[in-house]
């Protein structure tokens, strides 16, 4: 089946199989390898992308379901080679060790700060509760989101 959608701000079309999930489409057809597959069943958040502005697990969406949708992956959050402030702050705060959870964490944080520029610690924890990290212990990640929130507010 042929679908049309917007991928990282560009209009695209794709021929998709019924057996494909959104994550398969992104990684295999569009070579966007930033989106990771951990658990495949909606528990780890490594595959998080934005669908119409909302953080969604791309392992839980069928490729057929994104007709007309706006998809943004981690590759679309950076501005070309220029990292997004959230990404910069993840590096600075030591919020990345193996990095497997990072794209998903950044996407979840990005949605949070879009909708709530002044989140408290509880709200940050809630926003990333669906993103598992086996390395950092979360504290550095929460710090990175806090610093990003301040910085993004100041830059407005």
């Amino acid at each position, binding site marked *: 089946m042929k679908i049309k959608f917007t991928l990282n701000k560009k209009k695209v079309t794709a021929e998709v199989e*019924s057996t494909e999930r959104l994550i398969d489409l992104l990684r295999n057809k569009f070579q966007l390898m930033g989106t990771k597959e951990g658990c495949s069943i909606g528990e780890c958040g490594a595959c998080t992308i934005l669908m119409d502005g909302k953080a969604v697990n791309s392992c839980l969406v069928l490729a057929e379901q994104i007709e007309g949708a706006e998809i943004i992956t981690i590759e679309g959050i950076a501005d070309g080679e220029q990292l997004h402030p959230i990404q910069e702050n993840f590096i600075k705060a030591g919020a990345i060790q193996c990095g497997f959870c990072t794209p998903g964490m950044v996407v979840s944080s990005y949605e949070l700060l879009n909708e709530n520029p002044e989140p408290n610690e509880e709200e940050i924890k809630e926003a990333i509760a669906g993103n598992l990290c086996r390395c950092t212990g979360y504290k550095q990640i929460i710090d990175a989101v806090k610093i990003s929130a301040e910085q993004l507010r100041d830059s407005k």
Partner: protein
Amino acid sequence: MIPEHKFINADNIEDVLRLLNENDNAKVIAGGTDIIPGFHIDSARFKEIELLIDINKIKDFNSIELADNHLSIGASSNFTQIINDPNVNKYFPLLVNAVSQIGSHQIRNRATIGGNFINNAPCADSVPALLIYNAVLEIKSIIETKEIPLSEFLLKQYQTALNTNEVVTRVKLPFLNENYSGKFYKLGRRRGVAISRISLAVLMKKSNGIIEDVRIAGGAVTPIGTRFTKIEDMMKGKAAKSDLFKEAAQKIGEQILELTGLRWSSIYKLPVVQQKIYQLLEEINLEMNSVNKNEN
């Protein structure tokens, strides 16, 4: 692996009803957060599906509207929508409380209220809240539109009263006529994507210290989400006192044992459930007393 299937993006209800009528092995899909991982792990529950009918594009299915005597929630409204809706917050706060603890933020952005009970999993967290609010479902087929209380819709684990040619279109919550107070409680394994181990919803109304109405429902403690109506009836008309709350909690424990037969987890679960029901009743009662005092 996702099995091969036919897929249709439906853009109106009539098409959905016609397709359901023509295809015995068709299934409606909205959020997909149950079906898609189910496919992935090869779950027997979704083996027969030949056609998926996606209803995400149909506005009628995901609007939340005020009606004269009830709030009408489209069956494919997702949990984030419900959490953000001012009317659900105002009139049915326990539902907001329950669904904001489901899955993760990513899941709540996709998972729908209809999808939560349509597969009748014992751990569907919206169910106890919907049950104490006396939710009624609007169901459509090509032949008729009918309404059925959620409590009659849920038959047994993974089984409902839905026929293959039918779709649940709306969840209707009748407005409560003032002075109800309630609480929702969930115990899971950890924050985030915990499948719930125990969930409880309690609603109470009293006047002059006498219980006029009380509604108690549990999820994940019984094979399906259940209202404890016998015990509710026993409490009505009696003074809202600790002794009564203890007795009610005790009896609910006994009923859970009857419904489940003894399960390995009961030894741990049962005292927790009993204690928690007792606490919830006490807390609601105290809160109601202090509200009344403030008003005097």
